[in-house]
């Protein structure tokens, strides 16, 4: 058994709702795919075989009883392991949450289950979502299904790899500075960071609260739209949740880009930025041609303050993280390393429980917030966010959407950047500005690089611009040079893991 060609969430859900196939059969097919390659890829921290079987059977019983289990009926989904699942370990790939079983479900989990989805497992991530390669994990490295010597990107690398490998058609990630879009690009799948507040963060373990946002991974643009419609919309348990229903994306998906104005961000697109690989630039230019051919007008534009995005991000995100991660004190949940007094217990627990990257960011943030440095770093970075927001606002007076590469290069070899954090951070240069502004953006697979590995094009939109963003993504998907690297049976089950051209 292998995953049949075209096994998108939409197709699977419609087959299961109509009774043409059972949810259990669909699940078993995906479990076989997981069995075949999970040992090599390590996408999951935990596969919930029994729970998933019970959930799939429950869907089948409802279908048999004439009920409609919902738009994701029987669709296997994977959850990044920083989303709370009631009674099921939620680790953030950190030792410090060892043994913790959350007493509640994240809102996104509740909504997926209510829509009929079958949760298959919890996926690996860079510890507390801090990283761009899924190498900073207490559960080991996740490998890129298209070339297991390469990273899948991060921090949601497990979710990206799970979708790319055909383990599940859908997965959820979280994106603080590119943690959905960059791994989506590196694994050749679709990844979406919605508008800040569009998806409830209730039950998402906090990293940087003014930047974090949950979003979908899928093999097709239409599947991400479907998943976002299910998880989006107001939630009273998240005070930053936008008090509106989720936007209707499915009905506008095929509206095309005729007449849309698209701007290429000069500062992030290669000509203005060192370090963008030639093949990434070449694919971006082809994407531009595809949009023009579909009736959009495309021009270069400057969003000047985005060049300060990386600096501002690596102050703001660590600062918020240092505050958010103060809660891991060995008192209420997770790991405790005992000591003779409470203070020493806190220190011993945190020292043993956090990995190096998390320690680095906590210290960076603590420093940036400490007396004498606050104005120079944190205060200035918050003002840079305002500049970026204003620059985007100016650009969106002239353009409906903006375009850039998602990541500067294709997937890099495992171990290549672990010794030099600053080199690793540069991976996020194109994705960070959207987080700082709270805007939506998404990565669409658009051909491959010289090494045969996937390249993503990033579509950026103003706040609440998801409908227009998805229209452009759909056009790019249809025009992508080599079709879709991760769709179909060519890659799944391939013994070498190398994609066949």
């Amino acid at each position, binding site marked *: 058994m292998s995953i049949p060609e075209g096994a998108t969430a939409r197709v699977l859900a419609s087959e299961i709702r109509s009774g043409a196939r059972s949810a259990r059969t669909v699940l078993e097919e995906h479990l076989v795919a997981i069995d075949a390659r999970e040992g090599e890829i390590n996408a999951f921290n935990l596969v919930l075989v029994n729970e998933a079987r019970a959930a799939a059977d429950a869907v089948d019983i409802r279908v048999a009883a004439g009920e409609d289990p919902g738009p994701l009926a029987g669709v296997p989904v994977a959850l990044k392991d920083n989303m709370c699942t009631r009674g099921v370990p939620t680790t953030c790939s950190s030792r410090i949450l060892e043994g913790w079983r959350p*007493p*509640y479900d994240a809102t996104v989990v509740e909504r997926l289950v209510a829509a009929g989805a079958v949760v298959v497992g919890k996926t690996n991530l860079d510890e507390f979502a801090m990283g761009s390669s899924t190498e900073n994990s207490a559960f080991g490295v996740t490998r890129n299904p298209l070339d297991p010597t390469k990273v899948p990107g991060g921090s949601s690398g497990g979710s990206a790899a799970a979708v790319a490998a055909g383990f599940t058609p859908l997965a959820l990630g979280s994106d603080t500075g590119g943690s959905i879009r960059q791994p989506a690009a590196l694994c050749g799948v679709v990844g979406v960071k919605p508008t*800040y*507040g569009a998806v409830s963060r209730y039950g998402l373990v906090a990293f940087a609260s*003014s930047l974090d946002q949950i979003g979908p991974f899928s093999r097709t643009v239409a599947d991400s739209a479907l998943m976002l419609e299910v998880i989006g919309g107001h939630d*009273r348990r998240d*005070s930053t949740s*936008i008090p509106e229903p989720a936007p209707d994306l499915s009905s506008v998906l095929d509206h095309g880009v005729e007449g849309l104005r698209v701007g290429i961000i000069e500062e992030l697109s290669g000509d203005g930025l060192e370090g963008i690989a030639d093949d990434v630039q070449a694919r971006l230019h082809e994407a531009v041609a595809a949009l023009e051919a579909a009736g959009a007008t495309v021009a270069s534009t400057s969003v000047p303050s985005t060049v*300060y995005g*990386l*600096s*501002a991000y*690596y*102050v703001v995100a660590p600062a918020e993280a240092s505050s958010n991660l103060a809660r891991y*004190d*060995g*008192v*209420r*949940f*997770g790991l*405790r390393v*005992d*000591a003779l*007094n*409470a*203070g*020493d*217990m806190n*220190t*011993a627990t*945190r*020292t043993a429980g*956090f990995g*190096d990257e998390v*320690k*680095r960011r*906590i*210290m*960076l943030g603590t*420093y940036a917030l*400490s007396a004498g440095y606050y104005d*120079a*770093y944190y*205060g*200035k970075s*918050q*003002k*840079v*966010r*305002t*500049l970026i*927001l204003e620059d985007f606002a100016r650009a969106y007076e002239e353009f409906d959407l903006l375009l850039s590469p998602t990541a500067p290069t294709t997937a890099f070899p495992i171990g290549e950047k672990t010794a*030099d*954090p*600053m080199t690793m*951070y540069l991976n996020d240069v194109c994705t960070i500005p959207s987080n700082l*502004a*709270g*805007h939506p953006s998404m990565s669409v697979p658009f051909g491959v690089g010289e090494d045969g590995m996937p390249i993503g094009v990033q579509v950026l939109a103003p*706040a609440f611009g998801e409908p227009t963003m998805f229209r452009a993504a759909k056009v790019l998907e249809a025009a992508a040079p080599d079709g879709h690297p991760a769709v179909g049976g060519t890659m799944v089950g391939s013994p070498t893991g190398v994609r066949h051209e």
Partner: protein
Amino acid sequence: MTDRISKEDVAHVADLARLNLTEEELEAFTGQLADVLDHAADLAALDLVDVEPMTNPLPMRNVLRPDVVGETSDRAEVLACAPSVEDEQFRVPPVLGESP
């Protein structure tokens, strides 16, 4: 902007963040943090006196709910997450002094 971050600074910050560092870690982290802060030094050149800081991407608003009792977490379930409990409370080593 400021002098390069020193080993003493990093040791102080680690102490504030409740982290113990070995001498070797202190050395490595100091260099790495300095690299990141060097990169952030481009912010120093910006004149931002008249720019308002942005604390949140969306306009801030009050979020209120009706004043009615809703669902709450179950005490036993929450306490079951803790490494040590006693009499429906979290148990910790002495805050003042040391345990005997």
